[in-house]
């Protein structure tokens, strides 16, 4: 996330990207594995870069629609990134039209093993997570110089049938939210993703869990989730409101407040002991491409949709 702030908030970088490029962002975990036309095209670009033969393909690439690489950089400094962008634009300007233009055909079937899309009729809930600390008698975001001070973003995906079931539950006076939705939230979304990619919780790590909605749509719950050795966990409560109108979510607002502790493999640097963390769930209309990126926890799709397994 520091990358976003350092580089993309830079006025000159932002202006150049907005005006001179088609910008695209992708999850390397999927893209480098895809066995389809998209994967082939990406591999063609990568093979011209220092990432050729390297396991990870992470970085920033500039290339033509024909796949000719013009620049690569994986440095977080705005100056180096800016220099790479300008150099690539200079290369672009030298290219004959024939190298720049290409008729792009349809790419055919996506490799379903490494491609995720929201099921038809499904809905998206944005999930914001931030480490908090108590200052001046209230919970506030961490001071700017502390690791994990930024708000992390993920997306909860709900299927159309699940939304209808939620609506029926509310109309019938309320009760516990179904395991599919409830455990999906617990295992894949009540996580500390403020310092990188956290691992998913296992079902048996959800030690205490309750999430219910009443007949007015008011949501309440509490939870204790933690690793068997007690080295990593999250405990807290949930409040919110869910409204369903004509089978579609009209509101899905949750506030989660609790204390978290510990690191996972890719989320080192946690604060010592148990410290406050907060999450906000909010319905998204999915209009922006950035709203439609898959949930982090859906890499193993069957587990995401059937979290009790």
């Amino acid at each position, binding site marked *: 996330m520091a990358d*976003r*702030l350092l*580089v*993309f*908030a830079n006025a000159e970088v*932002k202006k150049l990207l*907005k005006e*001179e*490029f*088609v*910008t*695209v*962002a*992708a*999850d*390397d*975990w999927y*893209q480098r594995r895809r066995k389809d036309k*998209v994967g082939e*095209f990406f591999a063609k670009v990568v093979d011209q870069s220092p990432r050729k033969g390297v396991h*990870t*393909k*992470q*970085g*920033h*690439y*500039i*290339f*033509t*629609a024909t796949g000719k690489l013009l620049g690569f950089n994986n440095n977080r400094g705005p100056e180096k990134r800016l220099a790479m*962008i300008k150099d690539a*634009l200079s290369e672009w300007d030298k290219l004959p039209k024939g190298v720049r*233009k290409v008729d792009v055909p349809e790419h055919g079937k996506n490799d379903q093993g490494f491609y995720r899309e929201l099921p038809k009729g499904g809905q998206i809930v944005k999930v914001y*997570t931030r480490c*908090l600390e108590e200052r001046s*008698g*209230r*919970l506030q*975001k961490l001071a700017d110089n502390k690791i994990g001070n930024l*708000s992390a*973003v*993920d997306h909860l995906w709900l299927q159309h049938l699940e939304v209808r079931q939620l609506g029926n539950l509310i109309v019938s006076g309320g009760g516990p939210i179904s395991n599919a939705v409830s455990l999906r939230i617990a295992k894949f979304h009540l996580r500390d*993703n403020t310092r990188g*990619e956290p691992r998913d919780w296992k079902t048996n790590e959800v030690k205490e869990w309750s999430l219910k909605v009443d007949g007015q*749509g*008011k949501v309440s719950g509490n939870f204790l989730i933690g690793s068997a050795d007690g080295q990593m966990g999250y405990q807290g409560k949930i*409040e*919110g*409101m869910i409204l369903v109108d004509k089978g579609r979510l009209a509101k899905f607002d949750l*506030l989660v407040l609790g204390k978290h502790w510990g690191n996972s493999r890719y989320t080192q640097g946690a604060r010592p002991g148990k410290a406050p963390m*907060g*999450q*906000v769930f*909010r*319905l998204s209309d999915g209009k922006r*491409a*950035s709203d*439609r*990126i898959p949930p*982090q926890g859906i890499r193993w799709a069957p587990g995401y949709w059937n979290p009790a397994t």
Partner: protein
Amino acid sequence: MSLERVLPSGKQSEFDISWLGGCLRDYKLEMQNLFQTMLIGLAVLTSQADVVVVNEITPSKAESAWLEIDWETDLWEARKEAARTDKPIYLWEMDGHPLGCV
């Protein structure tokens, strides 16, 4: 009007504006409505602390500045767009979606 300016610093109790004083009795209702409007859709969360903490958790405008760039999420669509507009492609590739959690 920010909540921080309206509310006494450090107030953590459930939604309660009695501290405004008797002469502001009618104002209480007005303020209550205001606070509820300011819940940014979290209509059920009626404690002052909840309102403030929601704003603490969600991204600030400065944090979201990178979203002013119109990111595509499909490389093939970006390729088609680049061919159509005669522009180069800028790809931001990360393990964990760059527009997501990390």
